[in-house]
């Protein structure tokens, strides 16, 4: 376990090497360094994890050095490993490595190959810091680090200004959440005097009674940060635009790891939420609302990556929902399975996109299932996991969430019904996506360019999408047993069966709507009501419009009105005074030596008079 520090250091080393060589290395070497550092990190993480599980302890912390000492406030750079962190580290390094491997092929013909892997490695490092950091300060460092990498990678194809715009949008919107987060940290530090995670949780347990205002405020502020990072309502608008980045980036950052950081944060600060019913309720509602909005929006998208983006949003909504209803381990479990199948979906769609020469519009695809067998079957398996068909990993995790929700006393069946409805919608849009992409008539001829390094990750992730659930569930349930909720199967029969059947029903309905002519789609979408609703869903329930009207436009108006900057007058006055004195003194600076001598002696006389008078 002493090797824990090596896990984050390896990607950092990769980043530094790629950084200082300025892209002068040959591509093969770049690929080896970029993917290899994360791969080695995954190996080390496996060893450490194995040792950790074998040791039977519940946590292990490694103090590296003291970061800063201010008075009696000291922050040490230390790593903290428990099962939650272990799951996250496994996902980051494991899935991360597969995505890196895939990217070595996907990005082969792009400019800035080395730069890409430098950013990716930096991202992995920052993400590992986020999940392994023992103090909230270190967590925040990683939190901002991943935000930075997200920004850099969304705008990776920087020659198109649209991408830069998307990157800025992502950065600014998440910044709103980050502000809430840092306020929460300030408040926490002021109240408890520490930013060490374990100490602050301990302090919260002893210092605050259940439902105290301060606790709720801090929990809600932290939730604000989580919302921004995880693209939950109402700060979800950046994620669809973030799809401007290369597809491996979407897979790694905007599906598997970074966007789940919010889930991790809440799970990490679990005790704060356990003490506050309001905060927990908020978490659940945020998740549910996002889940709902996103799944309807996904139904109307034409860009395959945007469908997946909204799907990611809704799946993270599930995780928040799970956290809110108390299904802590189920949430983390869903995080893990989601990382598998969503990464798979993204990578498979990336292969499709690459084969179609960067065509992302689903309406221009179709009939690809024979021509692109590996992407098709990967996508098929990923979709099955996404809609939670039985026997897939998604089924296990989503079922766990829904059943816990149904059993939860404070939330009950209403929440369950909403979540189940959203699951139905998930099936619908997934079927639509699969049908439009792979069936029907061929509209664009594909050129399969994938090599072994691209289909190998697809195979592994497919296997994990199916088997990962069973493998993980047994492990996780025991590991989280002491903290999470037990899944005893004394369920209401109806709920259990309904939960299992809803996805199947959704798939059936979807099949009827999209693949057959049983329902006349044209008629619905062309009717005035259908049109307006479709439009409304397409733009993501108008959140962008709301922000544009409420924030961007007033800000622009204000900026235009205040072009001469009223505040600046104060400072301009200072410069004015300085300038007047400057001009006065300039007159005296006339270069005439005798004038200088005269002033000098006058000064002497003045000083002598003053001295004589005193």
């Amino acid at each position: 376990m002493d090797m824990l520090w090596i896990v984050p250091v390896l990607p950092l080393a990769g980043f530094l090497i790629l950084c200082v060589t300025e892209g002068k290395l040959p591509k093969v070497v770049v690929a080896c360094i970029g993917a290899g550092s994360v791969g080695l990190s995954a190996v080390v993480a496996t060893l450490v994890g194995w040792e950790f599980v074998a040791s039977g302890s519940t946590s292990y912390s490694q103090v590296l050095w003291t970061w800063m000492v201010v008075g009696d406030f000291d922050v040490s750079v230390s790593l903290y490993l428990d099962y939650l962190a272990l799951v996250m580290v496994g996902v980051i390094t494991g899935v991360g490595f597969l995505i890196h491997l895939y990217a070595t092929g996907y990005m082969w013909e792009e400019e800035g190959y080395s730069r890409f892997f430098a950013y990716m490695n930096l991202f992995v490092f920052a993400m590992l810091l986020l999940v392994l950091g023992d103090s909230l300060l270190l967590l925040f460092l990683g939190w901002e680090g991943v935000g930075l990498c997200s920004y850099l990678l969304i705008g990776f194809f920087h020659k198109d200004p649209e991408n830069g715009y998307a990157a800025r949008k992502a950065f600014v919107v998440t910044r709103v959440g980050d502000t809430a987060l840092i306020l929460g940290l300030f408040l926490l530090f002021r109240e408890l005097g520490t930013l060490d995670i374990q100490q602050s949780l301990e302090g919260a347990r002893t210092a605050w009674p259940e439902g105290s205002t301060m606790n709720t405020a801090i929990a809600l502020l932290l939730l604000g940060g989580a919302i921004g990072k995880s693209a939950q309502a109402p700060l979800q608008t950046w994620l669809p635009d973030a799809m401007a980045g290369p597809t491996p980036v979407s897979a790694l950052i905007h599906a598997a790891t970074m966007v789940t950081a919010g889930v991790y944060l809440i799970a990490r600060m679990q005790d704060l939420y356990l003490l506050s019913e309001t905060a927990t309720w908020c978490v659940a509602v945020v998740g549910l609302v996002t889940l709902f909005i996103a799944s309807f929006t996904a139904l109307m998208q034409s860009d395959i990556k945007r469908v997946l983006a909204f799907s990611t949003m809704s799946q993270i909504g599930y995780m928040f929902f799970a956290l809110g209803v108390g299904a802590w381990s189920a949430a983390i479990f869903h995080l893990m399975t989601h990382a598998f199948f969503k990464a798979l979906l993204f990578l498979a769609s990336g292969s499709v996109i690459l084969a179609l020469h960067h065509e992302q519009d689903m309406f221009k695809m179709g009939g690809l299932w024979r021509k692109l067998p590996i992407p098709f079957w990967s996508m098929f398996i990923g979709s099955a996991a996404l809609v939670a068909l039985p026997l897939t990993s998604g089924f296990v995790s989503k079922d766990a969430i829904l059943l816990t929700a149904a059993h939860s006393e404070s939330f009950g069946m209403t929440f369950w019904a909403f979540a189940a409805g959203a699951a139905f919608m998930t099936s619908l849009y997934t079927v639509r996506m699969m049908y439009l992409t792979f069936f029907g008539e061929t509209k664009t001829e594909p050129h399969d360019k994938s090599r072994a390094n691209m289909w190998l990750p697809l195979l592994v992730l497919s296997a994990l999408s199916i088997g990962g659930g069973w493998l993980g569930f047994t492990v996780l349930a025991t590991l989280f047993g002491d903290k999470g909720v037990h899944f005893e199967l004394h369920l209401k029969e109806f709920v259990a069966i309904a939960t299992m059947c809803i996805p199947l029903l959704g798939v059936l309905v979807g099949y009827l709507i999209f693949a057959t002519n049983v329902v006349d789609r044209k008629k619905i979408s062309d009717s005035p009501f259908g049109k307006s609703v479709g439009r409304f869903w397409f733009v993501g329930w108008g959140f962008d419009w709301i922000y544009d009207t409420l924030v961007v436009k007033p800000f622009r108006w204000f900026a235009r009105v205040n072009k001469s900057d009223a505040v600046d007058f104060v400072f301009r006055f200072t410069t004015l005074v300085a300038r007047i004195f400057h001009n006065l003194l300039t007159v005296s600076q006339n270069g005439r030596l005798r004038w200088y001598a005269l002033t000098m002696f006058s000064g002497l006389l003045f000083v002598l008079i003053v001295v004589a008078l005193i």
Partner: protein
Amino acid sequence: MIDGAGAIPLEHVIWFAITLFLIGVVGILIRRNVIFILLSLELMMNAAAVVFIAAGAFHDQADGQVMFMFILALAAAEVAVALGLVVQLSRRFKTLDIDAVSEMTG
């Protein structure tokens, strides 16, 4: 010739030094010719030297004369550099008027 009883009041020496110094000041201020300005500077330095020597004599110490040595060295170095400047000045501006080089305005 040197009879100890015929001593000189320190105060008078200082009056003399002040007068000499002020003559130097006036000289600097009224003349435009660089040579005269340098000359006035020499007068001022000598006034300082008088005070040093008088103080050294009053305290019966050699320090005053050591300071005079330093003044001497300073004057020598100063005159060497300043006369070099004077030569350059007359070469470039064809004049010794100090106001001709007032280009260093702020």
